[in-house]
């Protein structure tokens, strides 16, 4: 374990978090919210001091990373980001309990969007903005952002014997999906390209929403929440507070942010044909349209006409499959059949390499293809068949990793469910809460439904769900690895 490199990158990330708080602080200042801007100043100062103190003394020679450091850096940074990100809520006394503030911040950074607030509109504007901003920065990844803006990352280190292949470990540990590649040779350039696409799409959404007459503050915060596929609303009425046009814009952008960003890169570089061939995208849209149709039929009696039913079921499906969690209607009141379809969608989630959560469409595809293959091989037991995606063979090690991933995922969900059962809430509530949190969706069913919140849970449950959210966002391994003793052994 190269502790020096660990401190260097974690220090850098804390500084980035300090920078990320500046817009929120400015909004607090402009709105004359005394308590909250002071809370921001204190947090920013703390982050900057700690960040500089641990990163500055690290000399250039000691920054070499291996995959082990990459994993630890990602896990520790995300925990620290949440711990410090919760401070403004707590210090401003707008969320009096630190556990609640921590839950809220984890929920923001992991783009879950589960809230403990009963009245969002009572929160000061700066803090509302910070909540949404955590979605945005957490969506594409804080380390990816750090690499994109860190000038050193663009220069290969000449002092170490490696040519800088180490930075990929950081991106791989933070970006969702079983296979994480690069778009261009340099990791830092890849990070920058991803963020440029991300910023571009976010700006586009803001413009579309402004055109629909949405107030500027709402347009920006809702767009930040959509981009990260987070789902923190800024009105108590959620997205129902806006016009149908705005709802459609939000739904379309949710879908767009659930697509693998590599596809946008291919389109931008003129490889449209290759982009359109992506199998994962076909399946993603297939699920999206099929479930929209099924749910629309199922809920038709709740609406005046078929178009309204399609509108709301499309919005709900887009919101759930991309694990955003915005709501135009309280889907809690919809039939049970729809509830279960939505639960399936929560687990599947969006595409790999997008900002969405869940186990990702590609993992579902690999598992399904693997299962089909093992059924077929029962008939022809000497048959050899390679699992392919986009015409390229998926390595057997990847397939088995995906299977292991799903096993751990189920076990962890079961353990969380067990802990939540101590809280004496109904099965649907506890089950949907765990599924909504570990998949970074946000709203579950019952009291945790689209118009409800998580405030009634005990502190133990809130902490359990916070851990679930981090597990889900970082795709389990980094957080688990942190607790492996051999990770920390000198030779391990």
């Amino acid at each position, binding site marked *: 374990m190269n502790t020096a490199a660990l401190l260097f990158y974690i220090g850098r990330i804390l500084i980035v978090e300090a920078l990320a708080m500046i817009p929120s602080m400015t909004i607090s200042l402009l709105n004359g919210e005394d308590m909250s801007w002071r809370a921001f100043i204190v947090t920013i100062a703390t982050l900057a001091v700690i960040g500089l103190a641990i990163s500055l003394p690290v000399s250039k020679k000691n920054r070499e990373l291996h*995959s082990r450091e990459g994993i630890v850096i990602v896990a520790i940074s995300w925990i620290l980001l949440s711990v410090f990100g919760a401070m403004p809520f707590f210090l401003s006394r707008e969320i009096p309990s630190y556990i609640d503030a921590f839950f809220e911040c984890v929920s923001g950074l992991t783009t879950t969007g589960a809230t403990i607030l009963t009245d969002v509109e009572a929160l000061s504007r700066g803090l509302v903005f910070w909540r949404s901003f955590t979605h945005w920065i957490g969506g594409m990844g804080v380390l990816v952002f750090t690499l994109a803006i860190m000038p050193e990352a663009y*220069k*290969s*280190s*000449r*002092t170490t*014997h*490696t*040519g*800088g*292949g*180490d*930075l*990929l470990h950081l991106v791989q540990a933070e970006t969702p999906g079983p296979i994480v*590649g*690069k*778009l*261009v*040779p*340099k*990791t*830092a*350039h890849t990070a920058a390209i991803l963020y440029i696409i991300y910023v571009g799409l976010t700006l586009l959404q803001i413009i579309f929403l402004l055109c629909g007459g949405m107030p500027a503050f709402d347009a920006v915060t809702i767009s930040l929440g959509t981009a990260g596929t987070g789902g923190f609303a800024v009105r108590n009425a959620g997205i129902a507070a806006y016009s149908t046009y705005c709802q459609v814009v939000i739904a379309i952008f949710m879908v767009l942010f659930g697509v693998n960003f590599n596809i946008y890169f291919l389109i931008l570089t003129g490889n449209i044909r290759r982009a359109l061939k992506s199998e994962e995208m076909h399946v993603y849209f297939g699920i999206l349209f099929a479930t929209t149709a099924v749910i629309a039929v199922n809920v038709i009696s709740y609406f005046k006409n078929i178009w309204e039913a399609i509108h709301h079921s499309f919005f709900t499906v887009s919101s759930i499959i991309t694990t955003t969690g915005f709501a135009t209607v309280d889907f809690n009141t919809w039939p049970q059949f729809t509830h279960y379809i939505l639960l399936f969608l929560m687990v599947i989630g969006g595409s790999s390499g997008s900002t969405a959560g869940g186990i990702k469409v590609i993992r579902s595809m690999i598992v399904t293809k693997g299962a089909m293959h093992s059924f077929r091989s029962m008939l022809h037991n000497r048959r050899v068949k390679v699992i392919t995606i986009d015409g*390229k063979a998926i*390595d057997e090690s990847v397939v088995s990793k995906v299977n292991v991933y799903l096993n751990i995922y189920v076990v962890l969900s079961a353990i969380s469910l067990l802990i939540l059962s101590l809280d004496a809430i109904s099965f649907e509530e506890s089950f949907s809460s765990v599924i909504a949190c570990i998949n970074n969706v946000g709203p579950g069913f019952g009291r945790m439904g689209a118009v409800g919140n998580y405030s009634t849970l005990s502190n133990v449950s809130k902490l359990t769900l916070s851990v679930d959210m981090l597990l889900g966002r970082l795709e389990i391994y980094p957080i688990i690895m942190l607790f492996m003793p051999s990770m920390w052994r000198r030779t391990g």
Partner: protein
Amino acid sequence: MKVVVAGVGKVGHAIILQLAMENHDITAIDCSADALEYVQNTADILTIKGNGASVETLTEAGAGRADMFIAVMADDETNLLACVVAKRLGCRHTLARVRSPEHSRNIRFFNDQLGISMIFNPEFAAAREIFRMLQFPSFLKRDSFAAGLVELVEIHVKDGSPLCGVTLSNFQSIAQVRSLVCTVERDGEAIIPSGSFQIKEGDNITVTAGRRDFNKLIKNLGIAAPRVRNVMIIGGGTISRYLAMRLIEAGMSVKIIELDHERCLELSEFLPEAMIIEGDGTMQDLLIEEGISSTDAVVALTGIDEENLLVSMYAKHIGVPKTITKINRIEYKDVLRASGIESLISPKMISTTEIVRYARDMGHSRADSVITLRRIAGGNVEALEFIATEETRHLGELLINIKLKKNTLVACIHRGNQIIIPTGSDSIHIGDTVVTISRTSDAVTNLNDIFND
């Protein structure tokens, strides 16, 4: 600069690492996923799995928009085809590794008719370098500049050498020829010294001197070694074949020990003057029987590093005046040099250096580009040869008045037929060939890079 490398073997990997350190955008192609994963972990590059000569893979790798394409796959023919394809797709410069002697004769044809920018042959280059070492066994390594008029030679300072304890400002009075100490390697560290530096026994020093002054220099420094007249080569691979040809041309007698019968027949056909012995060159009995103790030089060229080292150590032990050892795993060179194995040769490093030079040269379309690049002092220091043009700064100024960057020096100026080993009162003029010394980590690409302003 965008670079595509097809083939991630030993040479490919070394090239990728070097170019990555020079901050190029590199895409690597190989058909082995394991090789790609390994290189991806060591360098910040993009990897693509596929056949490096196929149009599809090369298009996907963006070879058409690349500035440089390097083909280092296993077969010569594949490399040539890949280069032709890359060129057709629109790549600016294509480089192919071609190692078989049959193709090596047709380099001109490949350049002119197929449009391949550079053909490199690691084995041929290695043989040339070994030959140059054998020409002057007193020197551990030789690198020539200014069309062979000036050389940088590496010398080991033995116990009792007249150089022990001499400060560099007094070096001239001992050498009694125009010469300059450019680097000193001590305890595994390379130093670009100043005039007050004192030489100690055990140092390895690099000296610039005119080719014509070599005999005097060798005599005055007390490092005279007998001329090499007969050479024993262990291992009959491609390098051995190239080397034996040169040695025989130079009138030396050559004995090659090779294990494989078919290979022996082949060698004997191509090299009628050489004595080919079929047998295991690592067996002590055989070496003694073939008279290793009375040979002037032993060159260990088997495919296995450990065997080469063993043979060299044994040869050194029984008093063979000159031993040269080929190693692939160059990363251990510091350990080996420290344990007394000095004349090391690595075909992979020779080619890599040549490609790095080509890449740096391409970075500058102007005339003041890198003509020669040599790595000295264990690879930590570079000697570069430039031509001074009107864009060069400080033309005509006395060197003593020019501030150079830390750890750089001007080793030699070549003007017309004149070789100047510069002192403070010399100056650079337009059209001069200038040899500079700098740290490898500074990656000097232009003569102006050495000035500190």
